[in-house]
């Protein structure tokens, strides 16, 4: 069969256009073969054991109180301008639309990396804006750094304050998903979409 340069160009244009459309629909070769849309860890991370203080001033034993649940662990702070509110909004929005047999198994635990400004009251009010079931924890910077290290994320670093005393805190942007086998096999970096959460949370809830 002879293919003229003009028809080859036309075919190339159609393929390019189709690629754009398919990319937009999330049908890509990369995501097609995987069970999870999050980033799968080559070496699973064990569910850590630590105790911090919740927003009611009560000790929260992470390992015991999240046992047999899918636990989404995230480090961040209230004044975070982008990553934290986007992650929490997307998780909360998706959870509202999932059946209880999935959401009933999911806990979202937010550990503040800025305990000096994130008082229990502020943390409680802020998390309630997303979902009242989200759990907020506070600890000393040393405690939080140790937990971050134990789950393999970079420790948070506070920036220099500006003239008004405001500062930003650099922190890990991924949500770590511990499943009921007490391990995290997948993490969700910034950029995870609501459609990705909706796809993965029911899968995570099935892991025993």
């Amino acid at each position, binding site marked *: 069969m002879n293919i003229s340069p003009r028809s080859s160009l036309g075919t190339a244009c159609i393929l390019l256009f189709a690629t*754009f*459309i398919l990319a*937009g629909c999330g049908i890509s070769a990369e995501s097609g073969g995987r069970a999870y849309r999050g980033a799968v860890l080559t070496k699973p991370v064990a569910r850590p054991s630590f105790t911090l203080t919740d927003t009611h001033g009560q000790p929260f034993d992470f390992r015991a109180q999240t046992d047999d649940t899918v636990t989404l662990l995230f480090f961040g702070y209230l004044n975070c301008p982008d990553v934290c*509110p986007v992650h929490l*909004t997307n998780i909360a929005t998706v959870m509202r639309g999932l059946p209880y047999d999935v959401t009933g198994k999911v806990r979202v635990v937010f550990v503040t990396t800025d305990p000096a400004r994130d008082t229990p009251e502020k943390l409680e009010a802020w998390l309630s804006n997303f979902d009242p079931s989200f759990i907020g924890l506070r600890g000393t910077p040393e405690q939080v750094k140790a937990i971050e290290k134990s789950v393999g994320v970079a420790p948070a670093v506070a920036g220099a304050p500006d003239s008004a005393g405001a500062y930003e805190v650099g922190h890990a942007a991924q949500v770590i998903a511990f499943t009921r086998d007490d391990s995290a096999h997948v993490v969700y970096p910034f*950029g995870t*979409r*609501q*459609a990705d959460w909706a796809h993965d949370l029911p899968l995570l809830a099935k892991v025993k």
Partner: protein
Amino acid sequence: MNVQWWCSARDIPWAWSWQAYPGVWIAVVALGAAYARWSRPLAGSASHAFAASTGRRVGGWIGVALVWAALDWPGGPLGTGYLASVHAAQFLALAMVAPPLLLRGIDGDHIRTLLARNGVAAKIITAVTTPLFAMLAFTIVMLSTHAPGVVDTLMRSQLGAFALDLAWFLSGLAFWWPVVIDVPLRERFGPPMRMLYLFAGTQAHLYLSMWLLLAEFPAYGIYELAPRVTGLSALEDQQVAGGLLLTIGGTYVLAVISVLFFRWFAEPQPEG
């Protein structure tokens, strides 16, 4: 001062602090200069039979102002990086409203003189304003530039965002030309065909708006992952975008079709 040539998504929190976009200013000044020249009555034309009325010329300047408002701060950066609803409003301004306003304000003698020369410009205009071509081009541009992969890719660069804005504006000019301007003369493209053309040419618009309204999740990563500007969630903002396209865009097209119909209805019919 932080200067960008053209608005693009920047992944930083929105602040109501003014930004300069020199590329937008150059484009708007160039458009304004071209429109000023083309809306002025043609020197040397004896009859001025095709001169635009004052109302039409003012309408054209409103079109220039709309283009400016759609591209410059705050509408430009909000639409490229933060809010799908503003993006939809930009589309309506650049592709649906400004082009016919500008075309209506142009002095007809200029166009007739240009086309009579039969140069390269005349040949291009004749070709791209052929109704079938213009309608297909407008539909393809509308659908492809709203595909999530295209939006998420183009909006991240200034050149990409510029290309998208330009595609909307140029395809809008081509689409509206056969409705607004009588030359090149197309005898079979009378008022009924124009109404049908407008209806058919905006069906993709209807599909697009329904898709945005009914989607289960935000379609565009760029808006879903952007820091929120309003109290609306990304999905609610997307639904506002779909609603704008459906209500404002749909009502607008329906109004134009109605005007064409009543004008045609009021025309004296040839005695037979």
